[in-house]
Every structure is written in C-alpha cells, then in structure tokens.
C-alpha cells in the first residue's frame, strides 16, 4: 500500500503513539484487503461497546487510549449492554455496570457521539450520494452500501476506530464500483420481514463481497433492515445490489426449500417465555406501526423492545411509548437483543423474535432457544 509522506511519518511514530497505532491498524487492514492507498472518510461508526463482548481487555484498552485519543470525523457508536434508566430492574452485577460505564466514558472522552445505536442510518442525516464512511456494525455497513448510497468496507471494530482517529480508511474493493459475481433469485411468495431476514442469512453464507438479488419486489423499512441484519450475521458480504438482469453472474435460487433450511437451523423452540423486538433496533416508523397494529391489544407475556434513545424520546412525545407500556412492553434504549446481558439462560428457556440476527446470537452467545415468528404472527399469537 502506498502511503503519503504524512502517513509514513505517523506510522513511524512522529505524530505520537495514538496515531502510530491507528496507522498500524489501517496499514494492516489495507494490506490484508489488498488496498492500494488510504482515502478520506467523513463518518465512522464504531462497534466494540458492549462490555459483554469486549470484556476487561477492551475496557482497559479504551480507558488507556482515551487519555490522548480524539476522533477527527463525526463518529457514532453501537449499543452497549443496558439502558441506565431501568438497569436496576434487570439484576445485573455491579462489576458489569461499572465496567460498562467506564467504556461509555472513554468513548465520550474521545469525542464520540454517544448514540448507542446499531441503526445510525435511521437516526442521523445521510450524507450525499457516494460519500465514503467507515461502519463497523455489520447491518449498518450493509444498509449504508445497499440502501443509503454510501460506501464502506465491512470494517472491524479496530479499523473503524482507526478511521475515526485518522479520518481515513483503506481503499478496499467494496469502496469501488464493482458488480456482484453472484445473483440470488428470490422465489418465495408473500414474504414477511422474517423471510427477508432468512434471505439475508442465506445470501451471507453463499456470497463473498457483494450479492445481487433479483425478484425481490418492494420492501418496507422493516424488511430492508431484516435483510441487512441477516446477511451481516452469517458471512463477510457487505453489499446488496438489486438488478433484475442476472445474465452476467452465477445464479442460485432462494425458494421454500432454502428458506426452510435457514429456519430449521435458527428456530429451536415451539414457543418463547418472552418476546424481543429489535436487532437491528426499532426506528420511529416501526414503533409507530407497532402501536397501530396492536389496536389496543396487550401482550400475554413479557415483550422487550430495543430502540435508540433518540427514537424513544420522540416516540414518548408522540404517545407511542405510553401505549406500548400499557400493552405490557418494556422499552429499552441504548442497548439491543444482540449479545444482551439482560436475557440469561438460567432465567429464560426460549425467546420469541422476528429477528434472524437476534436469533443467531441468542442461541450461540446467550445459550437460550429461539422461536422465530414474523411480527404479524407474534401479534396474532401472543396478544389478547
């Protein structure tokens, strides 16, 4: 990879230890992904926030670098482990809470916007078409590349952090205009958001950098998010194209058979003890739509809803939060289903959700079983 004089000087340590570390990360990432140079980016989105995932090593690292490190570009942040407003109801130990708060403080000290959201594309203004960004959260990177006309690598927690500290990122192939080598023909009829999540999961398994999908039809926002969450979970792909012309690429079908295979892998229970909605977190549109769909009905069991703090505040003003709480929902901001410490296997056997991403991590990280259902099915079966 070619570096400018200034970048070389930073790599040699002439601009301090933090810059030296950041450029080492960028160079290693660039060499690993065969990038020929570094390019400027305008927005970084960081993962590596939840104490459940980064542990003591992460907490100590962030505390140490935050003494000197400051972000150079707009930088937003993934969810953490809990919502401080209601953490006392969830029986978390004091060590977890204090370590999580230390992580929060370190990021804030570095100048990161404490957005604690995995849907930056829904709560921030989207920059102009073609803008280069560095998003570490997989569903956000895929959404940015596929629906928001932005360009990002599928960053690691560290490459995105290095991008935030330098304002640069390796010019890897996902940042260039390239067509997908593989097309998936969507054959399943009457798809719900759950179907799109399974399609995404399938795409992540069979594809490489990007995947073309034909026959997909019109998707609402919930379905787009589900598609991106599914793909980010199963593979290294970071972009969907939606061209109907698939004559130039290898083609595979996604039909009932392929869908059922994904379903059988991720659905491990007939029913859940509680319901979770969100992963990705719900936006205002989905919360408002849920209120409408409930039509005054109430959940028969616990229903945890995860959303960004900014969305909860707006939804409170609009009266949705009041209605949902009356319907038995717990509304949590700053955190998400994925790798949540709030659902423990000694307290819960199985969870019902419409999230493919949530299902994967609930089973593999939390060790609880999962009952997969679309939102409309959840409302039909689980409310009265």
């Amino acid at each position: 990879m070619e570096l400018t004089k200034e970048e070389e000087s930073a790599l040699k340590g002439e601009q301090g230890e933090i810059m030296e570390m950041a450029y080492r990360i960028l160079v290693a990432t660039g060499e690993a992904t065969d990038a020929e140079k570094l390019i400027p980016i305008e927005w970084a989105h960081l993962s590596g926030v939840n104490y459940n995932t980064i542990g003591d090593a992460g907490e100590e690292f962030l505390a140490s670098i935050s003494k000197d490190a400051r972000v150079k570009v707009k930088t937003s942040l993934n969810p953490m482990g809990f919502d401080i407003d209601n953490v006392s109801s969830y029986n978390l130990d004091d060590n977890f809470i204090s370590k999580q708060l230390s992580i929060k403080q370190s990021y804030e000290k570095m100048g990161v916007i404490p957005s604690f959201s995995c849907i930056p594309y829904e709560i921030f203004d989207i920059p102009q078409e073609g803008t280069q960004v560095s998003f570490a959260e997989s569903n956000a990177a895929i959404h940015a590349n596929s629906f928001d006309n932005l360009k990002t690598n599928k960053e690691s927690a560290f490459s995105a952090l290095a991008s935030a500290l330098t304002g640069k990122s390796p010019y890897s192939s996902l940042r260039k205009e390239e067509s997908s080598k593989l097309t998936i023909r969507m054959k399943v009829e009457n798809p719900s958001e759950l179907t799109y999540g399974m399609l995404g999961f399938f795409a992540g398994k069979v594809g490489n950098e990007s995947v073309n999908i034909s026959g997909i039809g019109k998707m609402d926002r919930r379905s787009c998010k589900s598609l991106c969450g599914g793909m980010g979970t199963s593979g290294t792909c970071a972009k969907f194209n939606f061209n109907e012309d698939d004559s130039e690429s290898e083609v595979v079908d996604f039909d009932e058979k392929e869908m059922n295979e994904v379903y059988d892998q991720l659905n491990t229970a007939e029913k859940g003890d509680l319901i979770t909605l969100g992963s990705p977190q719900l936006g205002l549109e989905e919360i408002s739509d849920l209120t409408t769909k409930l039509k005054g009905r109430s959940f028969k069991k616990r229903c945890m809803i995860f959303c960004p703090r900014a969305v909860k505040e707006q939804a409170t003003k609009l009266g949705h939060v009041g209605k949902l709480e009356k319907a038995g929902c717990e509304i949590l901001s700053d955190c998400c289903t994925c790798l949540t410490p709030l659902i423990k296997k000694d307290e819960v056997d199985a969870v019902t959700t419409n999230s493919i991403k949530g299902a994967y991590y609930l089973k593999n990280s939390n060790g609880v079983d999962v009952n997969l259902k679309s939102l409309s099915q959840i409302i039909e079966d689980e409310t009265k």
Partner: protein
Amino acid sequence: MRKILVKGKTQGKILKSENPINFLGSVDKKTSVISDAHHDLFKKSLKNSILVFPSGVGSSVGAYTIYSIKSNNSAPLAMVCQKVDLTVATGCALANIPLITVTDKEFSSLKTGMEVLLDTESPNPITFLE
C-alpha cells in the same frame, strides 16, 4: 503469499500450530495458554514465541485478546501465518506484534523449536539461526 502486515524485528524460537487459532475462544487472556483440548497447542503458552499458525478464526473481538496478552507480557514475539485474517491483522497492529504471511512452502519448512531471526525490513524476513 508473502505479505508484511505489521513491521518489526525480533529473534526467538518457533512455536508451530497446525490448527487455526480462535483467540477469543481458546486463548487465556492473561497467560496466553491454549485452553481448547482439541487444539494441538493445548496447555501450551504462546509467550515469547515466534508463533506460526495457518490463520486466525472466530470473532473479531479476538483482536482484544491479542492486545490483552500483550499487556500481560505473555504475547508471542511475532506471528507468522499462511493466510491473513482481519482479527489477527488488527490485533497484532493494535498490540504492535510483528506479523507476516508466508508461502505454503515456507510455512511447511517452519518447525517448532527452530531459532529464527524475523526482520520485516529484510528481503528474506525469516533467517534460520543454528
């Protein structure tokens, strides 16, 4: 393929694993001892070795494990892989542990116990001593 991912110069004994390493799942964060009973380096510490292994696998959070063993003074002196992966690449970059990839032929010539000089600035990054 030969690549220099993280630069540096060091000398030490090779510790070779034929299995990939999942840093998050199977390396102790303080002692760098491999805890996976199915791994060929089971119960061995990676400390002060020139660690030779095919590639890293598993969660990218494993990069923090590499940083952690470095902070606890139990990290390898350098790592040599057959194939690059972002977890090991960014973890070594974070912890400033020299990292290179080598050709398949070079990889098979490296054996546990060999004393080598690793210098990423040299045209031949690995020199056998003795």
